């Protein structure tokens, strides 16, 4: 499954990527699975997702918890807690 991943704020700075499109293996079913899969890709991902509890996620631009199913997501974003306003 091909999906667009986006990284914001210090998650973007740590991964060194603003966005990328990846092909996910079939056993990556939830956000937690996806984070584990990303961490296996290299030290920059290990660093970005070190405190994975802190990382917030959105699927197709809607906030979701880490146990959310990826299903047919087109766009998945990772970011720190928001600090606008």
């Amino acid at each position, binding site marked *: 499954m091909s999906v667009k991943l986006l990284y914001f704020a210090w998650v973007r700075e740590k991964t060194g990527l603003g966005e990328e499109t990846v092909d996910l293996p079939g056993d990556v079913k939830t956000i937690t699975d996806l984070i584990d899969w990303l961490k296996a890709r290299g030290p920059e991902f290990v660093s970005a997702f070190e405190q994975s509890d802190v990382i917030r996620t959105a699927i197709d631009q809607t906030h979701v918890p880490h146990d959310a199913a990826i299903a047919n997501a087109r766009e998945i974003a990772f970011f720190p807690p928001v600090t606008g*306003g």
Partner: protein
Amino acid sequence: MIRVQQENFDIGAEIERLRDNRTDIGAIVSFTGTVRDTAQGAPITEMTLEHYPGMTEKELERIEAEANERWPLQESLIIHRYGPMKPGENIVLVVTASPHRQAAFEAAEFLMDFLKTNAPFWKKEDGPEGGDWVDARESDDDALKRWETPEKAAE
């Protein structure tokens, strides 16, 4: 109405545009968030707001719709800037109009509380010592709790 923009905004002009010479409004509340020149005692020379184009607009629209469902608003407006800003500049504007003052006040506070915890913006503050991402504040999560409806609290 919601707007996400890099340019500054004129608070007075936005309020006048929103009220649009109407005669049925009784109360107009505005909230303006501005860049402060210090953070935890350290000086700030510039602040940059990163955001998630697309999701930002969706979240602000969702939050505005929720406020309009909870309070009898005649008009509402959220403007949020992104990009680099200097101390003293405007960051965000929320305006609400209603026949009665309590609805206008409550809805404006609700919009700000939800925006602070749900709209995908991230602040990076630059000072003489370099730049740092701003940490989310627990007080913002606490502020959200007072808007919990009995059903939502039970979720």
